[in-house]
């Protein structure tokens, strides 16, 4: 039971870390054609996420693996119920990864455009659909003792789409700030300007999220039971405001840090409301999958806790180290050279 609570928290942390980290490279991918006016701009954008995107994506695989190990029934239901949505996410991630790699190996050919499109669309699809998926989880899935009664179209309800839009907006701002942070000159200026404009969309989506959530979901039940929890959405709002303020001051670094906090806190806002559910049912509360009825045995959770306590800090340590190595802004000549020649 206590381990199940620990794993609920860890589950949330893994998803939040994934959204925070992959969020900026998904955002950079979505903005690839918008910000990348010239070939050297586009090379800079690719290069800005080059060393990190693969390591960032592993947070998703770890979140998936942790769901499997700690909450097998949730993993099984979530992935099979949302089959088609996950399929699209999967193809998005496949195209994206392959595009980044192949793009560099096929410069100057007509294929470049194909991989550019694969990079941009492969970034948009996961961002949007993870939002749609979590929106529907917040709202509750149409499932009962007999199974699941939804379709892909069912997932595209207004609330699901709203959360999808929120995720896209969060990642767009995040990505624009990252590009502004990692590049210089004209591209950095345009990225910061884009971040300022997109921030308005982000705030709009966040306001709609907070306004619609009490009507569409039961997330606020936890908040009314323990009002101190309102601190989490409160901090999320503060972080979002800080993003706008810092971006307006031209402080890309601080704005990006605030954006990291905003993504984590928005995720936390949803998951605090979700607790102790992982996959609530909107038809029959008894069919909801919770950390009580869907977790692994205490023995397995104990083993997995030890594994997480050993390896997650190590992973964080070396990922921070790698980010520090690549902390400087990228020069145009570096972005355009292939160090393997």
């Amino acid at each position: 039971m206590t381990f199940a609570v620990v794993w609920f928290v860890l589950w949330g942390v893994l998803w939040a870390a994934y959204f925070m980290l992959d969020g900026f490279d998904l955002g950079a991918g979505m903005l690839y054609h918008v910000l990348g006016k010239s070939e050297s701009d586009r090379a800079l954008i690719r290069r800005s996420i080059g060393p990190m995107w693969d390591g960032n994506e592993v947070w998703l695989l770890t979140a998936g693996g942790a769901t499997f190990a700690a909450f097998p029934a949730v993993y099984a239901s979530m992935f099979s119920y949302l089959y088609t949505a996950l399929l699209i996410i999967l193809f998005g991630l496949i195209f994206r990864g392959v595009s980044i790699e192949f793009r560099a190996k096929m410069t100057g050919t007509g294929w470049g455009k194909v991989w550019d499109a694969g990079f941009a669309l492969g970034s948009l699809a996961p961002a949007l659909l993870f939002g749609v998926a979590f929106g529907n989880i917040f709202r509750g899935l149409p499932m009962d003792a007999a199974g699941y009664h939804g379709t892909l179209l069912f997932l595209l309800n207004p609330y699901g789409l709203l959360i999808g839009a929120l995720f896209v907006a969060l990642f767009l701002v995040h990505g624009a700030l990252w590009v502004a942070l990692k590049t210089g000159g004209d591209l950095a200026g345009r990225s910061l300007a884009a971040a300022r404009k997109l921030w308005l969309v982000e705030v709009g989506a966040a306001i709609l999220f907070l306004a619609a959530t009490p009507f569409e979901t039961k997330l606020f039940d936890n908040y009314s039971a323990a009002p101190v929890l309102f601190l989490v959405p409160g901090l999320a709002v503060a972080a979002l405001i800080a993003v706008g303020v810092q971006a307006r001051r031209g402080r890309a670094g601080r704005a990006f840090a605030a954006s990291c906090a905003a993504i984590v806190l928005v995720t936390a806002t949803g998951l605090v409301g979700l607790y102790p559910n992982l996959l609530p049912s909107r038809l029959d509360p008894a069919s909801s999958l919770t950390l009580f009825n869907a977790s692994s045995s205490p023995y397995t959770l104990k083993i997995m806790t030890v594994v997480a306590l050993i390896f997650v800090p190590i992973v964080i340590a070396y990922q921070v180290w790698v980010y520090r190595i690549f902390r400087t802004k990228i020069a145009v000549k570096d972005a355009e050279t292939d160090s393997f020649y």
Partner: protein
Amino acid sequence: MTEAVVGLSRLQFALTVMFHFIFVPLTLGLVWLVAWWEWKYVRSGNEKFLRMAKFWGKLFLINFVLGVVTGITMEFQFGMNWAEYAKYVGDIFGAPLAIEATAAFFLESTFIGLWIFGWKKLSKKMHAAAITIVAFGTALSALWICLANGWMQNPVGYTLRAGRAEMTDFAAVAFNGTGWLIFAHTMLAGFVTAGFFVLGVSAYHLRRKNEVPFFKASFRTAAVFTLVSAVLLVGTGDRQGVRVAKHQPAKFAAMESQWETETGAPYTVFSWPDRANERNAFEFLKIPKGLSLMGFHDGSAVIKGLRDIPRDERPPVLPVFLSFKLMVAFGFLMLLAAFLAWLKGKRGRLESSPRFLRLLVWLIPLPYVVIQLGWIVTELGRQPWIVYGLMKTSDGVSAVLAPSQVLLSLVLFTLVYGALGAVDIYLLARYSRRGPAGARPDGGHIKASRILEAEGGRP
């Protein structure tokens, strides 16, 4: 309905995992050679080794990306298509997958980025260390996946409780001999794949007298690596045979098309299974006690025949039998070729053997075929079980899926994977043929587009 979903889901899993495993073996093997050459450069300062690390490293990367992205599909699919399986065994089977992501996949994915983009950011030693860490990451990743698969072949360390298999002994899962043997055999198969890849590409250039010192050095290292790995590969294969005979008698009987239970069973060199009549259509050339020796290293051991295994617990005999025989035959062919490559390289007779060099180019695909055959034996031989003796494959499929959904995803996977595989193999071939010409010995950097220009492409 469900039957169609089971059939389509099995087909999809087979397609996606076999495609995944076109790219993984080269990754598992080539990374060690690249690391080896980079360390040689660090130790000796000889620029030739830097060029070798860069040239083979570039081919490694082209191959690497498809292994990574198609791996995500595998993790998703257990939940998407095999939800009942995931629910039933997730308590024990999820752990190795989660550990793989946390302890191994992070390592390789983080340090590969550092290696690709860190040439000018890191000291020479740190840079060589980065690719070495990637190598350990890939091996560790393979280990946990093989332990997960090993548990499906030989489930250990669990108890049935609350309607599912729950883990009771993590050490039993982590030290499952079946998984470790699969791991050893898989790693060595990857080494042999990489070895033949380097031998073949080097042979291609040596035959054209292109960059002779560069490719001779590559060839010699790869020849030793391949020969040692091939010998060990045969050895681990033998150990696996013993393991299978003991733990999975149905698979063992299918591999050899053994219908009758026999004490001191002979090994039949040529035969053909006749499933309808539960016997072999013909048998030719028998080695007395051979099969008992193979299965138990004991000439008087009892080998269980397929007739003594209930019909609904027998794997499909013909494909398992054929795959096994072909795997073994091709395996020894690889051993022979590796030995000849080593011998000719050692005696300095490479340039005078153009036909052998051409043969080596043609042998590049052979390990790939052998590996796929090996996995067919392992996985099809486990049928009808998804977890041997514990859960049938047909009981593991997701209950909510409609056949049309799976058919659609199967078609999409076939198209997308087909296209990406074609592009990747094209790129591998193109960059292999081009040779290391662009990797300048002075360590300078030139634009990739300039290379294309030189090649006649548009800048």
